[in-house]
Structures are given as structure tokens and as C-alpha cells.
């Protein structure tokens, strides 16, 4: 459609709706609850540098002293490399870290990770933001109920 009234630089704008959204391998929203953010601190017990998602396990002690082993999901190795991680170097068994993320809908000790803070204060993203792969804010078709 011809739009003669467009200003000359109208293509350079900061607004873009997510019609073709950044995609993930699977649905965040089916497995995790974006309304249940978590922040966990503990000791890394295991790292799985695997596809389609990497995981690390974290021993977390609660107020009563009980230790739970949490499983945290994140990016695959190719993306971790591009966000600043190095396999077997950046994150190792025994490391003391804090991670933010979101709790699994089934209530288990399982979470979707976002940002890891290391003991020296360094921060890196281990996983994407909430909401990837689950349809985003609006369906691809008009919702007749709205």
C-alpha cells in the first residue's frame, strides 16, 4: 500500500510489535510461572552443558537449615557462548552463586534461570526472560472474546 504521507525517516522508529517474536525451543509459560519470581543462593552441585537447554543444580539451604537441590534451566551451549559463558570454566561444581528466575508451575524444586551473580559480583545471563515461546502478549489471530 502506498503511503505518501510517511515522513522521510518513518522506518527508523523504536516501536515494533512482536508479530514474529523471538522464539525459543519450548514454551516458557507452560512449564514456568512468570508471576512466581525466585531468587536462590547456594552451591552449584552439577552443570549440564546440553541441548536444547543447559541446566545447573544448586544446593539451597532454607531458614531451618534444610538443604534442597534445585534444578535451573537455561540457554543451550551455543547461546551461552555468545552471552559470555565458557564451558567448564565460568560455572563449576562448588561455586557459590545467586540466581534469579521463575518457579516451575508444578511447585517442584525446579526453576527457569535468568541472571547469575557470582561471588565476585560478576553477573551473566544463563537464561532468557520470562515468556519466550509461549505466545507472548497476544495471539497471532484476533481474539473474538476481546
Amino acid at each position, binding site marked *: 500500500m502506498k503511503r505518501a504521507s510517511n515522513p522521510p525517516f*518513518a522506518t527508523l522508529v*523504536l516501536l515494533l510489535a512482536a508479530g514474529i517474536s*523471538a*522464539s525459543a525451543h519450548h514454551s516458557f509459560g*507452560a512449564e514456568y510461572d512468570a508471576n512466581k519470581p525466585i531468587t536462590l543462593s547456594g552451591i552449584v552441585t552439577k552443570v549440564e552443558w546440553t541441548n*536444547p537447554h543447559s541446566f545447573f543444580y544448586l544446593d539451597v539451604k532454607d531458614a531451618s537449615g534444610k538443604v534442597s537441590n534445585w534444578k535451573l534451566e537455561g540457554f543451550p551451549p551455543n547461546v551461552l557462548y555468545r552471552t559470555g559463558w565458557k564451558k567448564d570454566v565460568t560455572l563449576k561444581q562448588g561455586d557459590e552463586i545467586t540466581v534469579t528466575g521463575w518457579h516451575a508451575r508444578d511447585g517442584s524444586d525446579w526453576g527457569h534461570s535468568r541472571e547469575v551473580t557470582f561471588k565476585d559480583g560478576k553477573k551473566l545471563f544463563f537464561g532468557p526472560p520470562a515468556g519466550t515461546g509461549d505466545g507472548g502478549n497476544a495471539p*497471532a489471530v484476533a481474539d473474538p472474546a476481546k
Partner: protein
Amino acid sequence: MAQSRIVSNLMAAAVLAALPLVTTGQTAAPGATSKVPRAADGKPDLNGVWQGGSNRIGTWEEANGGGGTNATTGQITPFAVRGAPEKAPYQPWAAEKVLESFNRRGIDDPMARCLSPGVPRTTTMGLFPMQIVQTPKTIVMLFEVFHVFRVIQIDAKHPDDLESSFMGDSVGHWEGDTLVVDAIGFNDKTWLAGTGTFHSDKLHVIEKFTRMDQNTIAYEVTMEDPAVLTKPWVQRSTIMLRPGTRLREYECAENNTDLDRYEKLLKDESVFRRK
């Protein structure tokens, strides 16, 4: 740098100029600039590692994590498409199916089962880069995601012995400086773009790749499927060059925990459904 100041000024002007214009539907990119690299045969040179699904220049995180199409920070790429995308023109029965998939938060995404993403989803996907290898007679697109590839013969016809497949069969030709790719021969097991955007094996995809400058390909895709759509569905976006990036491996089935988890979740959909 003077150049970056100019870009910043242009962007600021563009934002101010664009604010009163609230439109639905997308607008096409303007004509290509004179800075388009050329191949030996004079065609625009598309060789390189690229990625779709984002209009944010910057680190991988900026472009794909905190960035991407939903970001409010970071520098937007020139030629980024403005305005809300056209809603998918599904027939009423089919729209209900798409909406149901959205309400189920995409738990039925074929990609979660490690199936090839199909066309055009593979091209418009963020996070994973693609590499274009161009010769005068053949253009090959290599996708990091799931090791998918497309071999596009130039000025060729589709084979007459096609069997339906995830990525279909693609042939191309040049219209001026635009590479036009025609793809048919699909199965019905992939999604076109967003959550639940299914199609039939009647799918016909026409893509236009126009290199606009050093860093940007304007991408327009027309999806025709009379079995599920009321009219052709047109989407426009940009694909940006990722200098210094090399394709790595993304092997889906190595440690895919999703299917076991989905099986448990599906016993009670109220746990995760939108409505």
C-alpha cells in the same frame, strides 16, 4: 563517531516524526542504499551470517534476550519495520485452533518435539543465526537451529516428484536487486510464525530478500494456504548481519526434558492454561 551521531539524529527525528502516526499494518522498507555489497555477477551479495527475529543491534543478549522485538533499550536497526503486524487471516474454524494453541501457551509447539521449524519460521526466528552461501546458480541457507538447511536453485523449476516435507522445496530468481524465493512441497507439521500458526500441505510461500545496506536485509514473506487462510498472509521484518558470528551446533534431542514434563502438565491443563 560522526556517523553514529548522524544515525542517532536520524533516529531521534524518526521517533518524533513517527509519533503522531499510529497505524495498523506494516510499511515496506524504502529503497536499498548504494552501500549494498555486490557479488562478482553484480547481484547483491547476501553472503554472511545473519539473524532474524530482532531489530536490535548489540550483543547477543541485547539482540535476543533483553532485546529483540520487545525491547525498549538498545539501538534499533535501520530499516526496521514499523507498526503492528497484520493479524493472521485464518478462516474462522482455523482461527479458533490458533487461539486455542495460544491459550495453551504453545505447549503443542512442534519445535518442542525437536521437529524442524519449517518455512518461514526458521528464517524469522531470533536467537539462532543463519548463514547464506551464495553462488550465481545456487543459494544455500544454513540454519543453526536443528541443523536445518535450504538449497535454493536459481532460475530453476520445482521438481515434479516432490513429496511433502518440513522445509519444502525452494527455487529462486532475481527481480532486480531482490532475491525472490518460491517454496512449496510442505507437510502440515510446522508453524508459520507465532504460536499455533498451523498450515496445510497446500502451503505456498513467496519470500523477498532485499539487501538494504551493509547490515540489513529487508524480508517480506507471503504465505498462501487456501485450506486454512482467507487470503495471503504477508509479514515484513528485517534480517540483520552478525559480523564475527559463526554457526555453532544446536542438537535438539540431546537432553530434551520437555516432553516428560508436558506429559505430566497435560494431565491437568488448568495448571498452565491462559483461560
